[in-house]
């Protein structure tokens, strides 16, 4: 088993210092013992007295006992919260659909609060008929429903040089998966009529960054959506209300929120977000651009640093997520020994094209240390690489597109740490 220079586990001080999320989880162990007055043979208050009636809670929220299940940010990452990111608490979720209120946020100039009556989408450029659509216009067009993952190209970007953040919320939480309702972009383009030399689109947001990306026409004609609902509800403001672009399998930066303008052109615009940012700097100083597709990736969400094992030994289920921008997940393998030996996990629930896919691996834990890894394989045969394999070809300066295999070190105490292994 692994060498461990801190074999005695965490001192009490370290546990306290380690972090609120972990502290909640670890201190949760005694709390799980419960209050005797609510436990059999006693009868709890909630079994005696009336609770809130209907419509007291006009818009439902999770139990107050789940108040720790929230998006979190990493304050030192960015200069201000208006241009920053918050992370989805993957370790607190199951299945494949992310609740709307927990979808990670990435803003460049804060949340644009757009009045639905004042919303307009402009479509112009190399088209026969430049058009303007209202929200009502968009909502009465033919529509489709599709669940797909949305992953920031910088997800796991802080881990290129080694294990840094201790929790899958921070290492992998810039991904979410919701069911979108929207109009295929090709329908809007058909309304305007594309000129023969149309090759690229510029997508522009209505926020104070006027966020822009150039989109190859082929993607627009393939599966791009002009989406206005997530999980059945109107988009939340932080996710682009009232309208955003959805580009299944492609990096989230291109999924322009608060969409206000689509321009059709014959070449890319080379905007800031596709030159200065979201280009992948390699070890030789050259940089890849237009790296749209998100490579296959996976992570074990439970256990993980914020969600330790509290049962000392015995049966448990390792749970995780896998996804690929190239198609469906074909298989996920799990290793308990840092990648020496692999066993195939069970995929559970729907396995959808370019959507998060849930996997489980059942173990009868003997209480010994584990080095947990998961490895996604997609339907094109792409196998999620180790971080070492990735660094060999991309160096450590890329920032973006880190889809390397994650390792969690489970101690005998059940605590879990983000580590790298040989």
């Amino acid at each position: 088993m692994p060498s461990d220079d801190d074999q005695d586990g965490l001192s009490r001080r370290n546990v306290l210092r380690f972090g609120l999320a972990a502290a909640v989880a670890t201190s949760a162990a005694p709390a799980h013992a419960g209050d005797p007055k609510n436990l059999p043979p006693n009868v709890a208050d909630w079994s005696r007295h009336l609770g809130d009636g209907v419509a007291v809670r006009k818009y439902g929220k999770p139990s107050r006992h789940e108040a720790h299940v929230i998006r979190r940010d990493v304050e030192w990452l960015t200069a201000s919260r208006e241009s920053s990111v918050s992370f989805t608490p993957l370790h607190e979720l199951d299945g494949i659909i992310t609740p709307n209120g927990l979808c990670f946020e990435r803003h460049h100039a804060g949340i644009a609060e757009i009045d639905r009556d004042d919303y307009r989408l402009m479509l112009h450029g190399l088209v026969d008929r430049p058009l303007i659509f209202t929200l009502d216009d968009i909502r009465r067009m033919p529509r489709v429903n599709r669940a797909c993952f949305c992953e920031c190209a910088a997800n796991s970007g802080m881990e290129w040089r080694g294990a840094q953040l201790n929790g899958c919320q921070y290492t992998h939480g810039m991904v979410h998966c919701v069911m979108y309702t929207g109009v295929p972009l090709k329908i809007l383009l058909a309304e305007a009529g594309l000129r023969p030399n149309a090759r690229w689109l510029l997508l522009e947001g209505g926020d104070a960054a006027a966020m822009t990306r150039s989109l190859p026409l082929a993607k627009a004609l393939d599966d791009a959506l002009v989406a206005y609902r997530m999980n059945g509800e109107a988009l939340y403001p932080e996710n682009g209300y009232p309208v955003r672009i959805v580009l299944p399998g492609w990096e989230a930066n291109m999924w322009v929120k608060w969409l206000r303008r689509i321009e059709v052109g014959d070449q890319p615009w080379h905007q800031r977000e596709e030159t200065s940012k979201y280009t992948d700097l390699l070890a030789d100083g050259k940089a890849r651009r237009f790296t749209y597709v998100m490579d296959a990736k996976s992570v074990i969400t439970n256990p993980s640093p914020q969600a330790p094992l509290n049962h000392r030994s015995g049966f448990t289920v390792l749970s995780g997520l896998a996804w690929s921008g190239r198609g469906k997940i074909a298989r996920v393998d799990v290793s308990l020994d840092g990648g020496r030996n692999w066993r195939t996990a069970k995929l559970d629930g729907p396995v959808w094209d370019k959507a998060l896919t849930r996997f489980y691996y059942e173990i009868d834990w003997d209480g010994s240390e584990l080095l947990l890894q998961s490895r996604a394989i997609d339907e094109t045969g792409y196998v999620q690489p180790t971080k070492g394999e990735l660094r060999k070809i991309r160096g450590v300066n890329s920032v973006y597109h880190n889809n390397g295999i994650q390792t969690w070190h489970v101690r005998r105490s059940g605590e879990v740490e983000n580590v790298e292994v040989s």
Partner: protein
Amino acid sequence: MSKCRDAIALAAAAAASVAALSSGFAQDAGRSLRPSVAPPAHAVAAAKRLGIGRAAAPEEIAGWDIAIRPDGKGLPPGKGTVKQGEALYMERCAACHGEFGESAARWPILSGGAGTLASHDPVKSVGSYWPYASTLMDYIRRSMPYGNAQSLTNDELYAVTAYVLYLNDVITDQNFELNDRNFATIKLGNEANFYDDDRETAEKHFWNKNPCMRNCAPGAAKIIGRARALDVTPDSGKGPKVE
């Protein structure tokens, strides 16, 4: 579009040479060349318009169309000198970006970093990394000053852009006037070092029909790095502080 065509050829080659690889990207790229071959559902939809939406008036488009391309398309009429830009920059930009573009706190750096891109600490400034000067002007036009976007006049936009280019030694004369007629002559040094996504060829070995399942590396796995050694996870109270 020759670069685009090259990318398409590359992607198509990758698709052909990697067994069982039915990459969406390769298929998409192929389709972009000949959108009329194998018409998908949208072509049918195109035949029958829905008649939804109203005509966009030229003045409406002019108010919102703020994009500038490397070839100069979208450049607004205007002019400004480095000296004029310096005054504006000190007033509206320097608090975050630093008087010389060196950056304050964690705000984006604008200058410096020459020769660092292949080093352990690459500095990706306008001069060291950005491929096109148009990107700088476009970005200032659409989103700067931070929190007061789209507030600069066209002349102010040219002046500030000229000053940032001066900070990067792209323009060396303080009296230089940048305008819509000479803008396209401004070239940045790093343009040639960008190339289109080549993962499906350069990383072809990540497609593997038979990934190793048993004894995949010699000896037991050894921990070589720990997140707690850095201890920068939020709530740990030890992360670098933001000013």
